[in-house]
């Protein structure tokens, strides 16, 4: 086993080393420093403690033959014949990563009636696409999908496997990773490739306040999941490329103890807490009609409209759209406040947003104290101008 051992004689001040451990694992018992089971092996005590006081002893570790595993594989997440965009983002990233080590990119596509999707995937630079097409794969069920994934990995022997952090991906990736007794790093925000094919994975820990750089140095394949919109989608290439291999799953792979009794599309009921983008109406929008303009903007951003308490009390928006201490707490990727002054109670409900753009005509508005981008101007003019540009730009995003 691996353990941290303590060299008592190298510790000049017992009480100070207790502070070293962020997890409270360093204890003093009978004037001796000990490490408890709270230890997470973060090794901070070794790096930051008195020189030589803490030492990590490990039993010899066996590594797999890394040369037996080559390439970067992507799981193509599809529901009802539609590819989740995160999968294409991962294909783009896989091409970058594989390019650095001169290895191929694989893709796994499972479902029913997949021919057209497989053909479409040929436009994104994948070397080899494996398609498992069967009526029993029409709906996601954990056991058959895991079996198919296992079969795919045994065929391709990829060094790295990337899976989108979708509802399906977060259920499937850990199951497959555990089947191969290998490492999985969830919700990576940065990926890079070492020349020895070790994947550099960076992810937020502790609710995003700390970043952890993680590697899987002795196991293959190395699994990583990534959420939607972390990486950019690759350009679709005019000319198709790569090879499509159709595999008929055998009956054993399709066995499932889970019975799907019903499945239906649901009415999308979305709460403002779930929105990645929020456009917020404050009293500065002046007229109820302007809510409609904010709604148009929110639609173009794939987001929702929220409001401050006065706007809700005026009846311009329904109560479940209120942001603030007496309403909802939101943490979107982007929030655009329109004519919001920024009361303490409002700010408490939205200051965790990743990007805050505030539009207000008053340069002294308190919202500007917390905004990343302060736009001093008349929201009733800026929004219509912006909507014009958006209309002209069409599908301007690349």
């Amino acid at each position: 086993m691996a353990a941290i051992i303590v060299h008592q004689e190298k510790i000049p001040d017992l009480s100070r080393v207790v502070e070293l451990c962020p997890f409270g694992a360093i204890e003093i018992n009978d004037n001796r420093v000990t490490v408890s089971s709270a230890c997470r092996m973060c090794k901070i005590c070794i790096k930051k403690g008195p020189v030589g006081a803490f030492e990590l002893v490990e039993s010899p570790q066996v590594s797999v033959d890394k040369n037996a595993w080559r390439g970067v594989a992507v799981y193509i997440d599809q529901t009802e014949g539609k590819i989740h965009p995160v999968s294409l983002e991962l294909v783009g990233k896989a091409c970058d990563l594989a390019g650095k080590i001169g290895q191929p990119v694989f893709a796994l596509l499972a479902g029913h009636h997949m021919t057209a999707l497989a053909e479409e995937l040929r436009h994104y630079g994948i070397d080899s696409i494996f398609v498992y097409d069967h009526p029993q794969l029409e709906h996601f069920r954990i056991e058959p999908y895991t079996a198919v994934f296992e079969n795919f990995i045994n065929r391709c022997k990829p060094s790295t496997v990337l899976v989108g952090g979708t509802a399906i991906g977060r259920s499937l990736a850990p199951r497959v990773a555990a089947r191969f007794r290998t490492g999985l790093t969830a919700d990576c925000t940065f990926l890079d490739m070492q020349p020895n094919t070790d994947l550099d994975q960076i992810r937020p820990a502790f609710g995003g306040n700390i970043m952890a750089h993680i590697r899987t140095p002795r196991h293959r394949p190395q699994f990583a999941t990534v959420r939607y919109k972390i990486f950019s989608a690759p350009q679709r290439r005019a000319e198709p490329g790569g090879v499509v291999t159709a595999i008929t799953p055998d009956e054993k792979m399709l066995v499932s103890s889970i019975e799907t009794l019903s499945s239906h599309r649901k009415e999308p009921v979305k709460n403002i807490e779930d929105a990645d983008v929020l456009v917020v109406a404050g009293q500065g929008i002046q007229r109820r009609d302007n809510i409609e303009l904010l709604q148009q903007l929110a639609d173009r951003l794939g987001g929702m409209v929220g409001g401050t308490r006065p706007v809700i009390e005026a009846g311009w928006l329904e109560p479940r759209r209120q942001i603030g201490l007496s309403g909802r707490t939101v943490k979107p990727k982007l929030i655009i406040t329109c004519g919001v002054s920024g009361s303490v109670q409002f700010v408490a409900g939205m200051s965790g947003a990743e990007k805050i753009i505030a539009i207000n005509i008053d340069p002294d508005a308190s919202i500007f104290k917390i905004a990343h981008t302060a736009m001093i101007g008349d929201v009733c003019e800026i929004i219509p101008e912006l909507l014009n540009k958006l209309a002209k730009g069409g599908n301007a995003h690349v």
Partner: protein
Amino acid sequence: MRILVCIKQVPGTTQVDIDEKTGVLKRDGVESKINPYDLYAIETALRLKEHWPEATTHALTMGPPQAEQSLREALMMGIDEVILISDRAFAGSDVLATAYTLSQAIQAIGDIGIIICGQQTTDGDTAQVGPEIAEFLNIPHATHISAIPECQACSVTVQVDLPATEEIIRLPLPCLLSVNKGIHTPRLPSFKRKKETRDVPVRSMTLADLPDTNPDHYGLNGSPTNVVRIFPPEHHVTRETWEGSSGELADRLYTYLRDAKFLA
């Protein structure tokens, strides 16, 4: 039959800072609490028990001795037995090693009908341990469960709430369920239960109690992933002010939204 909930003790706040000079995590005033998502799992277990009168409820956590506090809370909510699995050999466990340790403990406990996990934790946020436990135990699992409409003698019917669809599926027992926040409103720990459970012991397990006692399969050695380093995120609190005509401001905003890929 046993209904078992896996719970975790997490820091009471997500505001954990790193001392820029020393690189040490600052944990001043950081209290621990039960992972909020696990309260829904506990509530689900307590309600499921009503369907199987002979069933007992159990809460399991892997962690340092301090994690007993969270287990006591589970007792106060009405869980029958709480189990702490703790050993220095588990130090440095990643997702796989954690799932393996828990699956070993679950095998040692035995006679499990349903394992219930919360949706995710607030500190690791990975939502991956549940499915890995199910794989180690070779039992089916389902995640994103928003309701449990029916329980039979040897199966359970659940509603799976996916972003675009809602499915009703039936799983045989034993199985593992990850329940969504909001499946039931968790009850508050009761004062009466607190008094009643004051002397209920926390069952403690160590490596020696597990079917597999090889220490190399646990902790840092049993963890395929290694943390190379931890560091503070770069803060982009660059504040900027844009001024100009409404047209100019709209232009800048348009360019930003396009470049930052916000245009749907």
